[in-house]
Structure formats: structure tokens, C-alpha cells
């Protein structure tokens, strides 16, 4: 027999909820963090940059990259619990491009978690994305792991207002090496949201943050950079196991700052050079990264791909699926305290194309 919801019962339940709500946030702790998190697998596709030419025409090469990633994801065994799309689905934020991207992504047989990129945002400031695709800031819990998605590609209001039209603003943000560009940031509003969101998570719960730009500073001229990264890092450092997954850089890149492990995802469209190969300006490329094999443009899909991610004991093991290069595996080394490449990490194991100059 079902219990009838009497007025008294309802009031009692309401009072209990009110009592919890009035507790300081830091005291509200959920027990699932205490038990060891379960291992599971998810996938990551990013930076497809689908480019509209005219009518129904799109750049063939970039379409092929995303279609291939979707197809391969569908063949994954065991099935991934979900697939993350890491941002920059479109090239110039056009409705045609985003709709075309949704059409290709609809072929995926798995649920998708979306992260917005600057190429999706700066035409209509995220309106289409938020109406038709996804929220840009949210969190969810999955098998004992706390996932957070942030929009890290915001920038200063003065820059947003300086352009004559949305198209002009979009094309200026789309150009990576633009001297009139503007640095990315998460912004105070999301940072205070993040603070509240993390307050209810126990410090031994593994945390995985997903953003489009790296939440640390590598090379400002190309926006391999988030201006207020330190503020976000400060909120993440108290957790025992934190991983930040990001797109934007179109290359194998990883770093460790305190408790936080950073891993970059590949693009399905094209690779970007490492900032070391632009010799006119200094960079802060992480020393532990073993560079990807240098792109040989003879092969369209060279130095592009996607990732299968295994959540193992609260750490992310990254299986880079590289279409024209040998696959790479990045695993957190508990003894060293940072992620290492399973084959190439030691300098004598590296092969000639991994030297970029």
C-alpha cells in the first residue's frame, strides 16, 4: 500500500529539507565519495571545426574527421558510459555549422555531454548552443566521480563590445594568431558557482573538470591560456584526485600542477603546432609532455583523432586514438605523481618526429 502524503508528512519533509539547506555548505557531505569509485570508460571527441562553404557544402576534410570519430565510438567495446564533445563543433558559430554538427553527432549511440568552445560561442554569444544543444556550466556525478563542465572561453566585455557586427567579433576570435584577440576566462560568476558546487563534494572524491581551453597558462598569443586559471586551480587543489580535460590546443599535451592533472584532447579536424615552433615569442610548454609525432600533411588525418578514457581508481587513463600515427597511452604514475606516456616518456625512447623546432 502506498503511503498517503498527508499535510503533516509534507510539512515534516519540508522542514528536514529546510534544515539541510540552512547548514553551511561545507558541512553537507555526501557519502558516495568515501567508498572507492567504480572504474568505467567514456570517450572524448573534440574540435571538429565544421566549416560551411555555401548552400549544403561543408569542408569535406573536417566532416570526414568527425564522422570517423562517431563511427569508431559506436564500435567501442565495452560501450562507453557517455561521450564528451569538447567544443568547437563549428568554425564560425553559424547555425548551418552547428546544425550540421548535430546531424553528424546524432549518429552516436551513446549519451553526449557537451562543452562549448569559442568557435561555437562568439557569433550569438552561445544562444543557439544553450537553446538547442546544452547548458554551458553544469556538474554531474557518475559512479563515484564528480564531473564539472565550465565555459572557459568567456572574455572581457570591452572586447566583446568593440566589434561592428557579430560576424566581425566571431572571425576575430576564430583567428588563433590574432594580435587583436583577447584572453579566455572562466569569470567570477562561474567561479562562485564552482565554489558552491564543490563545497558539497568530499575531498577524497575524484573530480574531473572539462573545459574547452586549458585551465592553466601555456602561450598567450594563441590563447593556449585562461586568464583566471589560478582562481579555478585554487578551488581544485584541496581535492586528492583532480583531472582537467580540455580541447582547444589540437595536440597531445599534459601537465601536473600540484594535485591537478591536465590532459589535452586531439582535434578531429587538424593538428596545431607546438608553441615552441613559433620562435619570436616565449612559451610555457609543460616539460613533462612528450610531443606528438610531427604532422605530415600528406595524410589528411595525420595528427588528428579522439580519445578513449578509462577512469581507473579515480585517475584518468587516456588512450589517444590516432588515425595516421601510432596510438599513445597516457597514465597517471602514482609514484612520480604525474601522468606519463606508456612508451615514449623516457628521453631515450623518443623517436625523431617528436622533436618539434
Amino acid at each position, binding site marked *: 500500500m502506498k503511503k498517503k502524503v498527508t499535510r503533516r508528512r509534507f510539512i515534516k519533509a519540508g522542514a528536514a529539507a529546510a534544515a539541510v539547506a540552512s547548514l553551511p555548505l561545507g558541512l553537507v557531505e555526501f557519502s558516495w565519495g568515501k567508498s572507492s569509485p567504480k572504474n568505467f570508460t567514456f570517450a572524448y571527441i573534440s574540435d571538429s571545426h565544421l*566549416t*560551411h*562553404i555555401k548552400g549544403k557544402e561543408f569542408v569535406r576534410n573536417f566532416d570526414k574527421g568527425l564522422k570517423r570519430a562517431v563511427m569508431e565510438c559506436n564500435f567501442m567495446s565495452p560501450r562507453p558510459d557517455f561521450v564528451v564533445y569538447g567544443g568547437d563543433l563549428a*568554425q564560425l558559430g553559424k547555425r548551418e555549422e552547428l546544425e550540421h554538427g548535430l546531424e553528424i553527432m546524432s549518429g552516436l549511440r551513446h549519451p553526449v555531454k557537451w562543452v562549448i568552445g569559442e568557435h561555437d560561442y562568439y557569433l550569438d554569444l552561445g544562444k543557439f548552443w544553450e537553446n538547442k544543444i546544452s547548458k554551458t556550466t553544469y556538474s554531474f556525478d557518475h559512479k563515484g566521480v564528480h564531473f564539472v563542465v565550465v565555459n572557459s572561453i568567456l572574455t572581457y566585455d570591452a572586447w566583446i563590445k568593440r566589434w561592428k557586427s557579430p560576424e566581425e567579433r566571431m572571425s576575430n576570435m576564430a583567428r588563433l594568431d590574432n594580435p587583436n584577440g583577447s584572453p579566455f576566462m572562466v569569470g567570477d560568476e562561474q567561479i562562485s558557482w564552482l565554489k558552491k558546487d564543490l563545497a558539497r563534494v568530499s575531498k577524497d572524491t575524484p573530480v574531473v573538470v572539462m573545459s574547452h581551453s586549458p585551465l592553466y597558462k601555456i602561450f598567450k*598569443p594563441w590563447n593556449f591560456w585562461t586568464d583566471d586559471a589560478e582562481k579555478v586551480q585554487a578551488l581544485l587543489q584541496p581535492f586528492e584526485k583532480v583531472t582537467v580535460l580540455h580541447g582547444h590546443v589540437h595536440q597531445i599535451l599534459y601537465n601536473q600542477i600540484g594535485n591537478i592533472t591536465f590532459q589535452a584532447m586531439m582535434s578531429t579536424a587538424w593538428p596545431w603546432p607546438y*608553441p615552441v615552433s*613559433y*620562435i619570436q615569442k616565449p612559451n610555457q610548454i609543460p616539460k613533462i609532455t612528450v610531443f606528438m609525432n610531427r604532422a*605530415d600533411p*600528406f595524410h589528411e588525418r595525420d595528427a588528428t583523432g579522439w580519445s578513449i578514457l578509462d577512469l581507473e581508481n579515480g585517475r584518468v587513463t587516456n588512450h589517444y586514438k590516432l588515425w595516421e600515427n601510432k596510438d599513445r597511452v597516457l597514465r597517471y604514475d602514482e609514484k612520480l605523481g604525474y601522468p606519463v606516456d606508456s612508451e615514449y616518456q623516457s628521453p631515450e625512447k623518443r623517436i625523431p618526429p617528436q622533436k618539434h623546432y
Partner: protein
Amino acid sequence: MKKIIVLLSLIILTGSYNLAISDEFTKEDLEKWNKEFMAVVKEGDKLFHSALGKNKVSCDMCHPNASNTHPETYPKFQKQIGKVVALRDMINWCIQNPLEGDPLKLDDPKMIALEAYITYERKGKPLAPGKH
């Protein structure tokens, strides 16, 4: 006639005729020539960041600041072309393949401008012909 040629040769060889005038240039000349050069670099910068082919793709999408173009390593063996080529051959390869366009003439002012921009962004790097 023969005598005149012999005489002229003698004058030149003995250095009694000052040829230096044509080699002399001033600070103003240097500024003028640099201005000319930078105008071509600027034109190359513009071309490098615009759609040169038929599919809206531009050079800078793969090569921000012309990085990873390695102009100092040309001429070199280029796998996809199957022989030793100059930088301009590789520029045309990129225009024809990722940009899906028609190749430029090798002496097209646009080609010179692209080369000027690419090498300018790599200034200071020692020549390393053939390097991979």
C-alpha cells in the same frame, strides 16, 4: 674598337675608375627598402590569413604565425611530392590540397608575398637546408 675594349678593361682592372657610386646607399635608402619589404610582408600576412582556395580554409588555420612551415629547411625532400622542392612548391601543394584551390604561378607577386611573410615570421633561425 678592340683598342677601346682593352683600354676600358685596363682602366677597370687598375681601379682608376670609381665604380663605387652604384654601391653606395644612404640611411634613407635603407628605410625606403625596408618599407617596401614590410609592405610585401603585410600583403603576405593578409593572404596567409584569407581563403586562397575554394573551401574557405586558410593557411593560418594549420600554421598560426606561419609556424611549422620551416622555411629555413628548403629546398628539401618532400615526401608527398616525391622530390627535392622549394618552399613555393610546398605552398602550392597546400593551396591545391587542404585549400582545394588552383596553384599560383611561381613568380606570382602573391607567391613572393607569402614567402616574405613566412620567412619573416621565422627570422633569426639559421638556414638548415634538407632538414626534417
